């Protein structure tokens, strides 16, 4: 919009509308200079393609020809009938559950140990425990492919030398084991992130309050469960939210680590969409499954925000 235009518009309004409205419009014009560039990029490269793709789910389409083979809800039926899709959903929920009951408590325990207090070396521990966060998913997955190699890997070598009578485990090769191995690698890379969030939350717990409880005879478990953890409520609620979303949004690490195998035993939602939608040129099918995944995360986030997170944030912040 040119300066001439702005001037003409503002003059036209000067004669016709009351002062308050005029100021609002002027403010909106100023704001649009700040808002438009970013929102245009967001709209063109993310939002618009996402909205358009909702319709692909109703077609059989390889992504090349015209969009004309309308199939109604067939793609959705096909997905729910596909046993690998069921495995993928169950695995995503498994990763979610394991993250909540193992990853978050471990992160909390570490935050309590090195997040504050006077333990010598706690900064070094924090630095090292958080380190994997900067490594790419590709590097992480490659390292662990070798660590978890069935015969020559570091993990079996280590366990074989320290556990008497240990038999090599095919961490990434056995159907019943692989998803837990995937979880170990995810934990290795991401638990530091939650530890850091908990450390930040701990700064909001007044030390005096805990000391007072100790003086009154509370033991360490009581102090933790009655004072420290409840006072970190908002951080805990936030990490649960991020952890659940993260579990459903995983892709690259699992793809490079296992490719969803062996025999699809470690497929999760992300790798399923890539393998059966994009890689096999069933773009319509991929879009349908992507919409299912998106609906799961959307329903969860809206529900979680309405019911749980709203107590922590002002109403205009919807994370």
């Amino acid at each position, binding site marked *: 919009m040119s300066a001439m235009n702005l001037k003409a518009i503002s003059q036209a309004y000067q004669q016709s509308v009351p002062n308050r409205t005029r100021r*609002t419009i002027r403010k*909106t014009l*100023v*704001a649009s200079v*700040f*808002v438009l560039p*970013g929102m245009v*990029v*967001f709209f063109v*490269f*993310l*939002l618009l*393609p*996402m909205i358009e793709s909702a319709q692909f789910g109703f077609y059989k389409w390889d*992504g090349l020809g015209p969009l004309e083979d309308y199939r109604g809800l067939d793609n959705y039926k096909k997905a729910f009938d596909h046993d690998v899709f069921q495995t993928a959903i169950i695995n995503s929920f498994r990763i979610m559950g394991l993250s909540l009951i193992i990853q978050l408590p471990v992160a909390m325990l*570490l935050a309590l*140990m090195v997040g504050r207090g*006077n333990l*010598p070396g706690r900064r070094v521990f924090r*630095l*090292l*425990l*958080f*380190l*994997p966060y900067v*490594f*790419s*998913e*590709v*590097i992480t997955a*490659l*390292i662990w492919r*070798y*660590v978890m190699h069935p015969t*020559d890997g570091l993990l079996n*070598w*280590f366990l074989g030398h320290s556990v008497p009578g240990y038999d090599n485990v095919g961490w990434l090769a056995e159907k019943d084991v692989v998803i837990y191995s995937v979880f170990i690698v995810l934990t*290795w890379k991401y638990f530091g992130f939650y530890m*850091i*969030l908990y*450390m*930040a939350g701990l*700064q909001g717990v*007044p*030390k005096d309050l805990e000391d007072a409880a100790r003086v009154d005879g509370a033991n360490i478990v009581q102090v933790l469960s009655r004072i420290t953890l409840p006072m970190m409520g908002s951080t805990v609620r936030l990490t649960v939210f991020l952890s659940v979303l993260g579990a459903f949004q995983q*892709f*690259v690490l699992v793809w*490079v680590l296992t490719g969803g195998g062996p025999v699809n035993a470690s497929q999760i*939602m*992300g790798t399923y969409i890539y393998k059966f939608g*994009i890689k096999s040129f069933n773009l319509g099918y*991929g*879009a349908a499954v*992507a919409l299912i995944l*998106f609906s799961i*995360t*959307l329903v969860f*986030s809206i529900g979680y925000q309405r019911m749980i997170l709203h107590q922590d944030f002002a109403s*205009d912040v919807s*994370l």
Partner: protein
Amino acid sequence: MQTSESFSFKRMSNGQRFFTLLKYAVLIFLVMMIIGPIIMVVLAGMRTNGEFQSRPFDIPRGEIQWGNFTGILESDTFWVAARNSFYITAAVTIINLSLASMLAFAFSRLTFFGKGIIFNILSFGLLFPTVVAILPIFLQIRDLGLINNLWGVIFPMVAFGLPGSVIILRSFFIAIPNELEDASYIDGCSTFGFFRFILMPISRPALMAVATLNVVGAWNEYFLPLLILNDPNKWPLPLGIMQFQGQYGTDWARVMAYVGILMVPAIIFYLFTERFIVTGLTGGELKG
């Protein structure tokens, strides 16, 4: 710091001593789990493949295999990939930071029509997993003719990063006192002047935090380049190492050497920017 008393093992009761030792035992065990695989990578690269496979974790007993590293560092493909990674990371970070700070300024300190709705639409973007959005984005990039073009990777990455960056910066901008803004307007500053000459300079910690998170994300991105860049000369490092791994998959020592080389800049960057990453992730609450 909340605690003022200094650490003294001597003054502790036996129970406290046991508890402290237990803490160290747990911490050292977990740190070994974290850095064990990293040390393995370095040791693997320094030995021959046969040595690595028979003893995954061992110091080099024969000659150190510098060739594993120099072979990679002397190849053109490595440096082409490094250059591409550098371009992508720099562009994503600069564009994301510019657009996000403008947006965050508008959402935190300006009033305009539709502010709440637009902000909600933007934060909605946090919910799109890459794997869900990748297919529509791929089609859009194809329609725009940006396949095999670094910009076709850069702009979607900027769009992906915007919601998070804006939310971090906005909470920081909101905390800046209104008096500062009022004073600058009374002194004749325009809205743009306040943004450029007052808000930006005093927000440096937050801007550094967002920039750092962007650098980590862009440097590590694998999926978008995988779909959008077909020409190996355009590939960034995460694709480069996967191609290398495809070629030398059975020569573990070489692949680990490549991994080790890629870890060096990541670790150096981490040591210098750890506090910014932490600020960005925690909204500045974690210090010390």
